[in-house]
């Protein structure tokens, strides 16, 4: 089994009027929780989309779980999953119907048992027969997580996993993900704007700005290197600093 969950080399995504990802290279070992940080337009979502196979890069190579994502994505897709509060599940279907469809798409054998187990785990048993469009933000997040964990992914990509959640629900989701990751040893790559969340959950941080990776390290290493009190201050420093100043660091 390859030691790397993700291996990206010289990745470029160029649009007619902009370069969204500008020649980034990085690796992510298996079994760690890594954050992708950066301001709006830094290239985080573009990078996640390429890793998921939703977006074709202009050049560069992407290996996910040991497979070339550009050539063999269908070997990888059954082994990863994705959750984002910005991509809804179909509103008119009930939660149970949505989960059953995804369970079939992932070719699960014991679908009903798997859904029942996840429903108990994520406390969504009472809303299984409610249309997905009639859920609160917290319920939607937990249902999206259930969908994302259906196939027991080896790699979980999360886009703003606790966006628009109240502090209590956000804390519940973070605790759940921490416990799940500790139990399964899965790799998590998450894009987030919540610095406290990143400090708490992630052992590794990739800082992006203008399509480039401008720094990398553990949250504490970044805090120490930049001489700041917390990761939020590091983030603000990087986002507000001009590129030549960053390169000089």
């Amino acid at each position, binding site marked *: *089994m390859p030691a790397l969950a993700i291996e990206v080399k010289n990745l470029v*995504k160029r*649009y007619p009027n902009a370069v969204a990802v500008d020649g980034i290279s990085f690796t992510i070992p*298996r*079994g760690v929780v890594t954050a992708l940080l950066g301001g709006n337009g830094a290239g985080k*979502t*573009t990078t996640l*989309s390429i890793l*998921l*196979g*939703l*977006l*074709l890069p202009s050049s560069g190579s992407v290996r996910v779980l040991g497979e070339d994502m550009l050539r063999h994505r*269908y070997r990888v*897709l*059954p*082994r*990863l*999953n*994705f959750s*984002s509060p910005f*991509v*809804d*599940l*179909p*509103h*008119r*279907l009930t939660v149970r*119907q949505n989960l*059953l*469809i*995804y369970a*079939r*798409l*992932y*070719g*699960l*054998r*014991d679908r009903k048992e*798997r859904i029942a187990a996840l429903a108990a785990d994520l406390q969504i048993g009472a809303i299984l027969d409610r*249309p997905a469009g009639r859920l609160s933000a917290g319920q939607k997040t937990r249902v999206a997580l259930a*969908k994302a964990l*259906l*196939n*027991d*992914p*080896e790699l979980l990509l999360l886009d703003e996993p606790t966006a628009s959640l109240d502090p209590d629900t956000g804390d519940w989701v973070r605790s759940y993900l921490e416990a799940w990751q500790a139990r*399964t*040893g*899965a790799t998590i790559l998450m894009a987030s704007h919540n610095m406290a969340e990143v400090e708490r959950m992630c052992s590794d941080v990739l800082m992006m700005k203008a399509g480039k990776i401008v720094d990398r390290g553990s949250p504490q290493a970044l805090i120490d290197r930049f001489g700041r009190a917390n990761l939020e201050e590091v983030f603000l420093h990087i986002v507000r600093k001009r590129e030549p100043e960053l390169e000089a660091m």
Partner: protein
Amino acid sequence: MTTAAATGSGGSLGRIGAMLLRYLYLLRSSWPRALELMYWPTLQMVIWGFMSQFLYVNSNYVFRAFGVLLAAVMLWDVLFRGQLGLSISFLEEMWARHLGHLFVTPLRPFEWVAALLSMSLVRVVIGVVPAALLAIVLYHYSIFSLGLPLIAFFVVLLAMGWALGLAICGMILRHGMGAESLAWLAVFTLSPVSAVYYPVTILPHWLQYVAWALPSTYVFEGMRAVLFQHLFRGDYLATAALLDLILLALGSSVFFLALRGARRRGALLQMGE
């Protein structure tokens, strides 16, 4: 390491079945939508049935074969509903902004298309069969009296509807929801030249060339040959089938190229209302 909850089983058929189930759930979730599937074909059939009764005593054309207009309107609905059924299921994913989730699963594009085609068939059957049965009750005319040729007509028209539907979905993928109205309108531009209700010889000479380039024209001319001359035109069927294959190849190419283009532009995550 994770236990991988028995993934990978089921294969293509399982994933096609999953998507078909999704569209059936959607249909079941709204009875007005299911009723609407039957409403228009039935209404059309009722209007053309009364028209046929009127023309039966006033027109030699209908007198020679009472069902000529009723059969035409029901067969036209096979083409129209076939195209619309595919396009609507596709649009459901766009309205729900669901492509971003679907395409990170192991679902392959051709499996999605297979599910769209299957659902189109389901919608055609739900729409057209009640109208055909009601025509027997109201007008004592059974489209099933066309016999085996009916199956050939059905298949040719459905395949043409699928080819058009795939091309339209490709256009929507390429140009966004601004092209959505194509799903409802495009097929009607073919109606006048398909010689649905009148022989193709009625058309201006130059337009007949266009008409004979469409599989639907062969079906409706073939239908009249069965009704008026009790003759099954195998040559018409063969030509229509060949044209269908060409149209299906074109429609599929437009769709799959547009899907790849959407992956290149990053539209799969953003596309929707």
